[in-house]
């Protein structure tokens, strides 16, 4: 590489040294401490702690609600991105601005206001509850909160891809006699698919670890509306450190697998774009 040219700049030792020190102190050592403590118990004991019926119910709820929320985000996020990029209409700038709102809003506030909106006497709950749709203190509430939190990921991942999409290709399809639906299905949708999938995966990964917005809206009932991160906090409050650590390691392994998957997805998507 351009090693010789770069060597003229000073400060590599200092900045690299500080970077590695800070990274170790803040991220790597605490992470290693957690993993080491997990190895402190036997494999059988770890397995028992990580797979109690209550833990399994919590994983299941976390997975199901996160998946549903990610699907909702992929659908509505794609719709929002499409509408924002392709159409001009009154209120467009407002939507473009407020799409990032869930990202900027502290999750606790998101949970608080969503719980109050969907409560039986809330602005939305008072219309939905008579219809049998209960948004607060149910798994549906968890999905709602997770959809809110993950929305910007889906929209912002798709937006640049939509902007870069070459309209000429669609024009060619149209001149060759394809109807709009046919053009969309066989030209536009395949080009967008990797980005939609990446946005879906990012929203899913975010949802799996989410805590702040859920505590308020879910009610946190064991076996019913208790997500995995909440169970970790419960175990900690019971001073059951081994139990909390076992759950945390499971969640950690899952997050890292997802991270690896997302990296592969992004590589695939950028290859397809070229």
């Amino acid at each position, binding site marked *: 590489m351009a090693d010789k040219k770069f060597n003229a700049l000073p400060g590599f030792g200092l900045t690299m040294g500080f*970077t590695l020190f800070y990274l170790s102190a803040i*991220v790597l050592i605490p992470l290693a401490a957690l993993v080491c403590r997990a190895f402190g118990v036997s494999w059988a004991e770890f397995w028992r702690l990580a797979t109690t019926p209550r833990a399994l119910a919590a994983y299941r709820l976390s997975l199901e609600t996160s998946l549903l929320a990610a699907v909702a985000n992929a659908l509505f996020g794609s719709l*929002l991105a499409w509408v924002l990029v392709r159409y001009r209409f009154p209120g467009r700038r407002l939507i473009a601005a407020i*799409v990032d*709102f869930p990202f900027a809003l*502290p999750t606790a*506030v998101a949970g608080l206001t969503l719980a109050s909106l969907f409560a039986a006497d809330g602005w939305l709950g008072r219309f939905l509850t008579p219809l049998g749709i209960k948004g607060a203190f149910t798994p549906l509430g968890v999905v709602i909160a997770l959809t809110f939190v993950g929305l910007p990921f889906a929209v912002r*991942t798709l937006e640049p891809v939509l902007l870069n999409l070459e309209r000429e290709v669609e024009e060619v399809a149209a001149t060759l006699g*394809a109807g709009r639906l046919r053009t969309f299905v066989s030209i536009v949708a395949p080009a967008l698919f990797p980005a939609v999938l990446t946005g879906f995966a990012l929203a899913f990964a975010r949802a799996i670890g989410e805590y702040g917005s859920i505590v308020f809206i879910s009610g946190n009932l064991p076996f019913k509306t208790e997500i995995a991160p909440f169970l970790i906090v419960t175990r900690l409050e019971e001073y059951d450190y081994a139990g909390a650590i076992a759950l*945390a390691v499971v969640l950690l392994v899952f997050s890292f697998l997802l991270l690896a998957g997302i990296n592969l997805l992004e590589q695939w998507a950028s290859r397809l774009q070229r």
Partner: protein
Amino acid sequence: MGQPPPAVEESGVVTNHKSAKQPSQRGTEEPPLVKWLLILVALGFCFVFLLLPLANVFVQALSKGWAYYAAALSSPDSLAAIGLTLLVAAISVPLNVLFGLAAAWAIAKFEFTGKSMLITLIDLPFSISPVVAGLMFVVLFGLQGLLGPWLDARDLKVIFAVPGIVLVTVFVTFPFVARELIPVMQATGSEQEQAALTLGANGWQTFWHVTLPSVKWGLLYGIILCNARAMGEFGAVSVVSGHITGKTDTMPLRVEKLYNEYDAPAAFAVASLLVVLALLTLAIKIFMERRQARKELS
């Protein structure tokens, strides 16, 4: 993973929305009925999912009137929470700025093996659940933890005290500044720094007068995102704080406590401050993205 990619400013990029009305391009537009149906669904979704929650915070906060709102915010416990939140952000944001500058300098200006590995490690906190992050520090510094007994013998408290809150906040906001700065510094290259050094400037002068001005917008962008997360973090802080009213409650924790004490208007009052913070963050973010887009066009 902790933050969505930045918005792309569209103005000037999509140039054919006017010409789309011409007959020659009709084939690339949806029928008006489909188009307006899609717009209607999008508007409806944003209204229900984004605007209603936003408006609801202020309406609920003022549901018992301005006097109650003011009293809720000026109660000693709320003021202590606001103070703690400001203190935590004032410590953790500069720390991460320092780290971000150092990491970006090392990564953008030099070649070394393991660079992509290092970048992955820097992004790691984004993919760790905040609750797990909090637990990591409890395991390290808690009384049952590895360093706990040593700290306890010296009467130092990290967990259930302010240092622990600062540490987890540094952890969850760790990548923000670095990941904004690295691409910006990479894009500017190092020719200008080389020139400054050739002309006799020393390393620090080069950094202050050449590098820093060229990355200041990226830095500012990273800082506001980092600050928003630092002030709003809930899960990780909740695990290590110990929830001592007036001492280790940050604003988001205060919101939860007031809500659990069935004082919803007061909870929403504190929450409304955090919403104002979010709106300010959003406004600065949009302003800077517009600026960036204009610069790229010219």
